[in-house]
């Protein structure tokens, strides 16, 4: 009896696993819900006002700052692809380490971006400077 239950679980896992075509589904959903209004569905942002994420040098150069920006927002000037942006972004404090990791990986692998995948332990490390808002999970 117990064995058959394990079997069913195993095959269910196999089934759903094989149907999953894109690895960052959660990141995609979170991006749609929290980021897309401003950074746009294709990651292009809004010219001169909201920086792009697609092909943005900032992600490669300042990748370690991104988790804190997602969590706490950012105010002041920011240079992306040689252009200065100065629109305040509000943070999304409710996002967990894992969710932030998934968003970053979605961004890193979308719209032609080919940036390295980050792991959540790495993101936890990067979140330390803004620790006051860090949540355990």
């Amino acid at each position, binding site marked *: 009896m117990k064995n058959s239950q394990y079997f069913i679980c195993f095959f269910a896992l196999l089934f759903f696993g094989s149907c999953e075509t894109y690895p960052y589904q959660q990141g995609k959903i979170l991006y749609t819900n929290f980021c897309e*209004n*401003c950074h*746009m569905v294709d990651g292009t942002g*809004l*010219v*001169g*006002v*909201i920086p792009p994420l697609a092909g943005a040098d900032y992600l490669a150069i300042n990748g370690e700052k991104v988790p804190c920006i997602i969590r706490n927002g950012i105010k002041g000037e920011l240079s992306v692809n040689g252009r200065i942006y100065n*629109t*305040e972004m*509000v943070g999304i404090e409710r996002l967990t380490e894992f969710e932030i990791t998934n968003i970053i990986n979605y961004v890193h692998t979308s719209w032609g971006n080919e940036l390295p995948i980050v792991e959540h332990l790495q993101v936890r490390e990067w979140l330390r400077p803004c620790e006051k808002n860090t949540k355990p999970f």
Partner: protein
Amino acid sequence: MEGRSPGTIDFTAFSGPGLRPSTTISKTSLLQTGSELRSFCHGICQRTNFFKGVSFLFLPKISSMKYLFVLFASFSIFIGCQSSLSPDVLPVLGPPEIGPNGDSIPHRIPDFSFIDQDSQVVNNETFEGKAYVTDFFFIACPTICPKTAKQMLRINDRFKDEPNLLLLGHTLAPKYDTVAALNRYAKNLGVSSDKYHFVTGNQAAIYKMAPEYMNVALEDSDAPGGINHSGYLILVDKKRHIRSFCNGTDPEDVDRFMNDIEKLLHEE
């Protein structure tokens, strides 16, 4: 009959706003001019799209014959409206007033006067003999505005060499979106006040204009950014009549809207 009483299903499926046959007939008989008829049919078509979209939801409840009928009916309404989806002459939209002789007076944008990003007065005379596209936004808006702004920029780019079309963006947060802030915003977007006016002014006066352009704008502390507003882009002709509109967050709808602009510019 699969255990369902006949009749009920057709009705459920037809119960989109204003789609009950009886309403359709009575409303049609009230319509007098051709343009009204067209604008009404336009409305039906939009609802029909909605109706087509949801009709499959009723699929499990109805027999296949009924389903076929509903499908056929919705399809024929849709096809029947196709011609008016792209009418040769754009309809005059907005709530008409009833004149003293019982004739209907089409909705007309009332007088206004605001200040733009270069401190110029922008009023009805600015748009004398020209058509314009307008919307309501505010710079710090965290929801629909960036998407709408992107579509307004598309319109700006496509019609940048067309002297008879201007753009007008009303800020809904004049307290923050001052002339200086709007000037910076316009510079960042790379647009010029020859073409695209971002206006600020008396808050009550701006909010009063929103319903005239068939938009909603109200302060609401529960809404993100503190302002609850719609993102419709409105096309106004040189006689101050609304001729077309679209959802400013939907690029496909904006494509259709730009064709309407093209059509209006070729009118006369």
